[in-house]
């Protein structure tokens, strides 16, 4: 019974990782590929770890598997965000069918005029500008 459950969860995780790798080779744009890797691969590794923890049926292995899943859940979005930001500043082109480019509008200050909630956005923008200035000083 435990083996059946474990095998089902492991095969689900492997399927997610396989879909993610197909997405890496097939999707048209760097930023879309980042989303494929961040979501699908993290979910796949989490499923494999849950399957391993089910099959061993011990507390120590379950803690190790939970640690791996926790590290991946914390670090994977951060690294995707940092890489995506560095790629945008490096000039990696967007897909030609991409219509919404909120990051460019945000940098040019256009985003404040289009949305109704002015005060909150401007407060956030002020902090952002301050951070940019600090970066340039360094």
């Amino acid at each position, binding site marked *: 019974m435990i083996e059946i459950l474990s095998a089902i969860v492991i095969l689900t995780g492997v399927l997610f990782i396989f879909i993610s790798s*197909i997405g890496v080779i097939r999707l048209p744009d760097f930023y879309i590929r980042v989303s494929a890797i961040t979501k699908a691969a993290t979910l796949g590794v989490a499923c494999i770890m849950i399957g391993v923890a089910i099959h061993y049926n011990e507390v120590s292995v379950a803690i190790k598997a939970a640690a791996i899943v926790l590290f991946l859940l914390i670090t994977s979005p951060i690294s995707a965000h940092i890489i995506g930001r560095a790629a945008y500043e490096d000039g990696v082109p967007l897909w030609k069918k991409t219509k919404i480019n909120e990051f460019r509008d945000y940098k040019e200050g256009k985003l404040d005029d289009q949305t109704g909630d002015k005060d909150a956005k401007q407060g956030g923008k002020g902090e952002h500008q301050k951070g940019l200035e600090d970066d340039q000083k360094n």
Partner: protein
Amino acid sequence: MSWFEIVLLFALIMLSFSGAIVFVRIIVGPSLPDRVIAFDLIGSITIGMIALYSLTTGVESYLDAAIILSLILFLGAVAFAYYMRKSHKQ
């Protein structure tokens, strides 16, 4: 060979196959961030393979290597992003 070992073997073969697919993206990737992201995915696939190998051999200490790998991967991606931004400013 029980049916569960066959399932594990099939899972390992699928993971190796997806690793080979991602390696194509490392070769043809038009920009540096594509290669970094593909490398990140290969690391995730390696974590899964280590976990499955620990199941096939029954040695649970191999999971420690997977923990370390999941931390090292984050450092690798962040270091690449840091040096990309630094070289872009100059």
